[in-house]
């Protein structure tokens, strides 16, 4: 009942509805475009772009004197885009590697952004209040009009993503092949980076410059654990993004003094953790269980083939052998051998003749025979 009351609140409470909707849009767009960034090993590009956007926001405000979100978003996009181009040019023309170039752009652009922000603060007539919300994000200040702009930009980005789906797929997995069939790979590269810039800029107001990179990396990294299929991964990343965004918005609205951005980041990180542990095939827990089962099976087979080895020395195949003899051949102690024998007994492959004496059964003999043959192959 409480849950329904809560859902009702989301729909009726203006602030919560706006924040949840904004966070959902942020989640789906950054999840979808982040998937490509992560697959293209550009996970941290988001970090650089979001930091580089800060001077753009400040510049847009200085130039126009208007605090309208669309103008600030354009400023952020231009600066983020410029930073990316500069970074790519550094990587291409010098021996500085991606990590260095990213760090260079993000720290110096951000520093310049700070300079501009403090410059604006010192202007007597300027009403700069609210610009610094881009640093850490302040989802609670989202307005319906902000969300509408986010929605429109996000929709444009998603539509472009769908239109060039096949091309982007080739760009991601085999750009050389793309080049050979005449795709404009460079242009596509620029286009998809531009879409990433849009995704990041959309999120800045909600989660802020510093944490935006997490929204690019995390949903995609989580989705990656569940599937090997690009389409599914993008959809899943979008869904994870929405879940994290909305639950983050709700949690921070419940508790006092819980900043939305960091909460959203913790939510998506939790999803990443769960995915890495429990996703089928890749999940660490399943891997661990699988390894345990395999190891157990190998141990059993080792005891069985030891007994087989001993049996081969005797005329009678059901000649019993002592645990002590098996123990000397085995990697484990007497208890380990006894336990293994008991388990083999339940499978009907060995029989207990007397006390610590064990012998192979007919089916055990056949099984051991198969094993030895398998190994010889």
């Amino acid at each position, binding site marked *: 009942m409480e849950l329904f009351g809560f859902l009702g609140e989301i729909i009726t409470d203006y602030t919560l509805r706006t924040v949840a909707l904004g966070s959902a849009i942020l989640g789906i767009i950054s999840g979808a475009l982040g998937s490509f960034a*992560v697959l293209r*090993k*550009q*996970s*941290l590009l*988001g*970090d650089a772009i979001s930091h580089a956007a800060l001077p753009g926001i400040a510049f847009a405000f200085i130039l126009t004197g208007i605090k309208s979100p669309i103008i600030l978003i354009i400023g952020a996009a231009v600066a983020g885009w410029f930073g990316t181009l500069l970074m790519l040019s*550094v990587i291409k*023309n*010098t*021996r*500085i*590697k*991606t*990590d*260095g*170039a*990213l*760090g*260079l752009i*993000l*720290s*110096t*652009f*951000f*520093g*310049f952004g*700070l*300079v501009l*922000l*403090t*410059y604006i603060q*010192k202007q007597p007539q300027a009403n700069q209040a609210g610009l*610094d919300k881009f640093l*850490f994000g302040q989802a609670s200040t989202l307005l319906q009009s902000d969300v509408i702009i986010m929605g429109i930009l996000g929709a444009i980005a998603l539509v472009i993503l769908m239109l060039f789906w096949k091309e982007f797929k080739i760009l991601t997995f085999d750009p050389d092949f793309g080049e050979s069939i005449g795709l404009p790979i460079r242009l596509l590269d620029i286009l998809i980076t531009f879409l990433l810039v849009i995704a990041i800029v959309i999120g800045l107001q909600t989660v802020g410059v*510093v*944490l935006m*990179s*997490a929204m*690019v*990396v*995390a949903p*995609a*990294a989580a989705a*990656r*654990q569940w599937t090997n299929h690009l389409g599914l991964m993008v959809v899943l990343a979008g869904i994870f993004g929405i879940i994290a965004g909305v639950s983050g918005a709700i949690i921070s609205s419940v508790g*006092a*003094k*819980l*900043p939305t*951005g*960091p*909460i959203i*980041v*913790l939510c998506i*990180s939790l999803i*990443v953790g769960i995915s*890495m542990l429990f996703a089928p095939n*890749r999940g*660490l827990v399943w891997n661990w269980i699988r390894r345990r089962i395999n190891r157990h099976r190998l141990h059993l087979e080792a005891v069985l083939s030891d007994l087989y080895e001993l049996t081969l020395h005797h005329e009678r195949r059901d000649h019993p052998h002592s645990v002590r003899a098996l123990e000397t051949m085995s990697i484990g102690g007497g208890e380990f051998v006894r336990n293994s024998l008991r388990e083999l007994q339940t499978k009907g492959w060995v029989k207990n003749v007397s006390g610590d004496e064990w012998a192979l059964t007919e089916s055990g003999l056949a099984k051991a025979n198969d094993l030895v043959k398998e190994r010889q192959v």
Partner: protein
Amino acid sequence: MNPAQIEIQLIAIVVAVACALPGVFLVLRRMALMSDAISHAILLGIVLAFFVVKDLASPLLVIAAALTGVLTVSLVELLNKTKLVKEDAAIGLVFPVLFSMGVILISRFAGDVHLDTDAVLLGELAFAPFNRFEPFGYDIGPITLYVMAGILLLNLLFIIIFYKELKVATFDPGLAASIGLSPAIIHYALMSLVSVTAVGAFDAVGSILVVALMIAPPAAAYLMTNDLKWMIIISAVIGILSAVTGYWCAHIFDVSIAGSMATMTGVFFLLSFFLAPKRGMLSIWQRRSRQKWEFAIKMLVVHLSHHENLPEAKDESRIDHLQRHFEWNKDFAERVVRRAEKSESIITVGDIMELTDKGRQLAGESVVK
């Protein structure tokens, strides 16, 4: 300059050099972004330690923060080992979690204490001289200056003592491992230094300036030299220059000091990017352009020498023939001829070109026999 201004610049200079030292190895080892991750993640350590001791000046804060830095590095390694995500993604996953926890704890519990996120991220160098170091009642300068000088000394000693080990491990990890230098130990030692430096610098200059000072000066120096020792020295010098010029820019325009210094590191990198000898964009362009002309002149003399003294020589040696033969446009062809004349490889009689001895020699050298 009043004493406070001198002190601020001194602190900034010490921080700049302290950051540049480990920064060189971060850039060379392609782990520049670990400085970003560590300098953000230490916020959590500082906040947790603050809740325990309730004192912002306690050395426990520094220790806790440094431990968080090492924890960040270990978590990234751990994620890498699972092979579930790529290395860059691992960094991008780990530090936002720790940073978010720090931010949430601050805004939920710390209230109006001096500890706020802006301060950690942005720092406020202008306030650094307010905390004085006063042993036995004598005021001998700001605390931050002494803390950072200590860290600078630590970094310097580490690099001097383990210079050879660091060098081998950085440029040839395989060799390092084979002669018994554990890559893991060097990695963690370096990361601990980065953590300690970031922690020491955080309340003075903020984490972003730490990142800028650790990456930009070494990156700029990397373009200027091939010698590790010189790279370290140049990085330190660029760091100092950025600190001082950054301070004065901030002073003149009345803006954030840390931001201004970070901007200046970017400016100095750009200068190096364009003007560095050999590797700068300008000398690359120059070299390319020179090579273009040299190549064109070689083509021209080889062409002339092919047809020299043959019946078709008159036809082949006409300047307007070049356009057809090499598909050069008229303007380019004329400029090549003029340059070839200037280098005394050919002489022109009317619109017929003739090789000089020098030109013949050049043609001979240019063709592989």
